[in-house]
């Protein structure tokens, strides 16, 4: 009964601690309902019985009653101590990380999440195996964020300058939203991701694929670049339809002339894009703030190459400069191992 009722006001229970939290929630809800009814019933009865009306006289009553007052001091005291006890016990369950947990590093920055697996792979969505305790190490590059998965009843702030820990163990396969629950500026409400809980065997296969995007079927650098655009936080600030966001739009940007805040102009070539991803405050486009976080260490050069490949597909000036053929090369035009990466700028 309570379970059905709970589904009205609670998210699904998808972790080992969730049933305990919900039990306590319902227990406190019961206490709340009892005292509300008691107090409201008292008010209503008194309001009707002792309302002012012709012929009604307020009666004499004692100004205080030590026994009664001690009763309604001690009973609430006992109740709150019981609630404290269960709350604390539940919290210890959440705090003590079981041994042999699978460790994932949670990297947060304005305004996206990234999850790093033990083999170094970084993904924008959190994939975890079902039934395995997951230990999270939370870090932040800029301001305070809060990693919150309602379905797991798990929340922890990621604080710049320190490592916070949290853990959970998923109990059902499925996808559950991740929210940022600590206000972090403009796109706070878009700092979203999801947890994908899989059977352990599927998880292993997924991780294998995620570690090598080039081996995935249908891989093209452009598509890989588009995936990075959508999943690693670019989309929150850079539009691809020409509209202004927190950052300049990518539509028709690559290969065009860009006016910088210091008054100079620059051609948005491979070097410019590469530098802007890694050192975003060095060259600011006129009319924008220096708010972009650095992806130094977050994106590999190879991945930046894919992003560049993607940007080329949505830039008319670039396509025009490529002549009537206008063909966008389908293979990566360069690679970080190639010594003359700047050669790419000749393409404009």
């Amino acid at each position, binding site marked *: 009964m309570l379970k059905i009722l709970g589904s009205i*006001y609670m998210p699904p229970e998808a972790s080992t601690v969730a049933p305990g939290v919900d039990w306590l929630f319902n227990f406190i809800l019961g*206490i709340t309902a009892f005292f509300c009814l008691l107090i409201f019933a008292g008010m209503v009865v*008194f309001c009707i019985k*002792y309302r*002012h009306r012709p012929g009604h006289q307020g009666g004499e009553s004692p100004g205080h009653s030590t026994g009664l007052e001690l009763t309604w001091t001690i009973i609430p005291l006992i109740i709150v101590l019981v609630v404290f006890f269960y709350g*604390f016990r*539940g919290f210890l369950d959440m705090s003590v990380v079981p041994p042999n947990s699978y460790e994932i590093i949670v990297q947060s920055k304005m305004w996206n999440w990234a999850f790093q697996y033990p083999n170094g792979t970084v993904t924008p969505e959190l994939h975890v195996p079902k039934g395995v305790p997951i230990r999270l190490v939370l870090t932040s590059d800029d301001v305070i964020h809060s990693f*919150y998965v309602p379905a797991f009843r798990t929340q922890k702030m990621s604080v710049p300058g320190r490592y916070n820990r949290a853990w959970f163990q998923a109990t059902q396969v499925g996808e559950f939203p991740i929210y940022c629950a600590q*206000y972090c500026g403009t796109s706070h*409400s878009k700092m979203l991701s999801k947890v994908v809980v899989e059977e352990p065997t599927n998880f292993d296969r997924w991780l294998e694929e995620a570690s090598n995007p080039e081996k995935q079927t249908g891989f093209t650098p452009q598509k890989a670049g588009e995936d990075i655009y959508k999943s690693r936080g670019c989309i929150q600030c850079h539009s691809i339809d020409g509209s202004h966001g927190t950052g300049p739009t990518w539509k028709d940007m690559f290969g065009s002339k860009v006016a910088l805040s210091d008054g100079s102009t620059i051609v948005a070539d491979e070097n410019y894009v590469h530098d802007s991803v890694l050192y975003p405050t060095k060259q600011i486009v006129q009319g924008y703030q220096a708010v972009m976080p650095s992806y130094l260490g977050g994106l590999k050069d190879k991945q930046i190459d894919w992003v560049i490949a993607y940007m080329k597909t949505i830039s008319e000036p670039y396509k025009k400069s490529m002549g009537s053929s206008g063909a966008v090369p389908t293979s990566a035009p360069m690679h970080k191992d190639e010594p003359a990466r700047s050669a790419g700028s000749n393409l404009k």
Partner: protein
Amino acid sequence: MSAITGNLGLATKQPEHKSDNYLTHGKGIKSWLFSLDHKRIGLMYMIGVLTAFFIGGVFAMLLRTKLLTPGLMYTHNEADEWNFYNHCFTLHGAFMVFMFIIPAIPAVLGNFVLPMMLGAKDVAFPRLNLGSLWCWIIGSIFFGWVLLGGILHAAFGPFANYWANALIPAGLDTGWTFYTPYSTAKAANGTVEALLGIFILGFSSILTGVNFIATIHMLRPKGMTWFRMPLFLWSLYATSIIQILATPVLAITGLLLLAERTLGVGIFDPALGGDPVMYQHFFWFYSHPAVYIMILPAMGVISEVITAHTRKHVFGYNFIAYSSIAIAMLSFLVWGHHLFVSGQSPLANAIFSILTFAIAVPSAIKVFNWVSTMWRGDIRFTTPMICALSFIILFTFGGLTGLFLGALSNDVHVTGTYFIVAHFHYVMVGSALFAFLAGLYHWWPKMFGKMTNKTVGNIAAILLLIGFNLTFFVQFIAGAKGLPRRYASYPPEFHKYMVTSTIGAYVMAVALFMMAGNLLAALINGKKAPANPWGANTLEWHTASPPPHDNFPVEPVAGDPYDMGSWVWDEATEQWVLDEDHARTVAGTEPTVHQH
């Protein structure tokens, strides 16, 4: 009316020239702006805090309207839309907390009523009182500056001119909590002006606290022992202790933030070697007690209103008085419950959790005592009483939902969500605002000598109660289901809660305009108020309405403040008159204990 004071048997016949009252005592704008009269200062505070309340309310309407849709409401692109929303909720919170709720009851009702409840001519330090008002005005000017700057920026900015950029702040988007390192490293540049404003506003609060404590110690009249003080004074005393001890911490924290933001001194920003969690400790060391600055005086008002309109001696005076002091003391020891998910150690969490539960007990005691006061009463459903009953309902709910947040494992799930938003609005708006309205309606006849319209006032109060629950009850559900607060956009599953909430907010706006209109209408064509329209026995009802400049023609002697039997209804004049024989038999009317 002077006839009432005559009935006290203390003054013989009132001379006729006493028709002069504090409102007519001096003329011209200067006689107000530089008045040392606590009553005039109280009224000026009222104009100020109600203006702040209006501005805060406009932002509330703007942000609730935005939340009708998860997408774009006011602008054409997402970054502008989210920024606009962020500025709205920040200014809503900042205006409401720093300029409205914190000063509302102590500075308006406290200033007006406290000296009169003591039978005194004024507060202990009238000049300090005026200084406190001016601190409030100057501090608020800084916020007006931020507000105006934000509007100018939205309309014409960003500015190319260096001075224009420096002098016109781009609004404020830190949230009223100013969490670092966002506030020092990233936020819009109105932060400096806002922090200066808060620093100055803090002095207004501190000076009022000092003044009230000194006044209560020094100026109690003959017959008024500590335990014969009206409960409103107990609650103001407890509030003043918090104001004096906690506000300086906020001032220091604000200065440290300023030093970091303007001079780059690393205190909170890890990029400069600071610790952002330390900021949260500093901030909540003030801001949790500040919650009790908001609610304690509200509790005092409710104690007065319920006993007066139930015509019953308050039940369990000592427990209510002691619980005020207990709350004030405990309020300093619970700040860490705002940091349960910040990485604070489990031991610290456990200690803060148990202390948080401890503070729930004195709050519960008060509710039980108020309800018991109604037992065998003669309950009159006046507007202040309707507001007070609403207060009990909403405070019960706001207080009990605090249990969900105090319980550690539950808090991890609901902290930072709409559950928190709903909880603190039940306490700060549901409780503190309703108590403020109850107090305004209760003392309005004393302030202006005019009665308010009961029917309109009651309808407005009930409408406000309905609107309030519509707005905030659904937010408990949205929060429990996991919707984080301060979200400009939200997943579609939460749409129904957001729409309901916004409709409720519109109902509240209508009700509040009715409330305000009713108060103003009373000034213009309200029925003339007698000295004691409610038959209450605290000393402010022993003098004319509105009171003369010096409050009392003759220094009154205090008896039991809740002895309702000493006032009887006189059918002939349709007024409450003092039953002298009864009053004389009340123990303590003779000044046996001398407290000066």
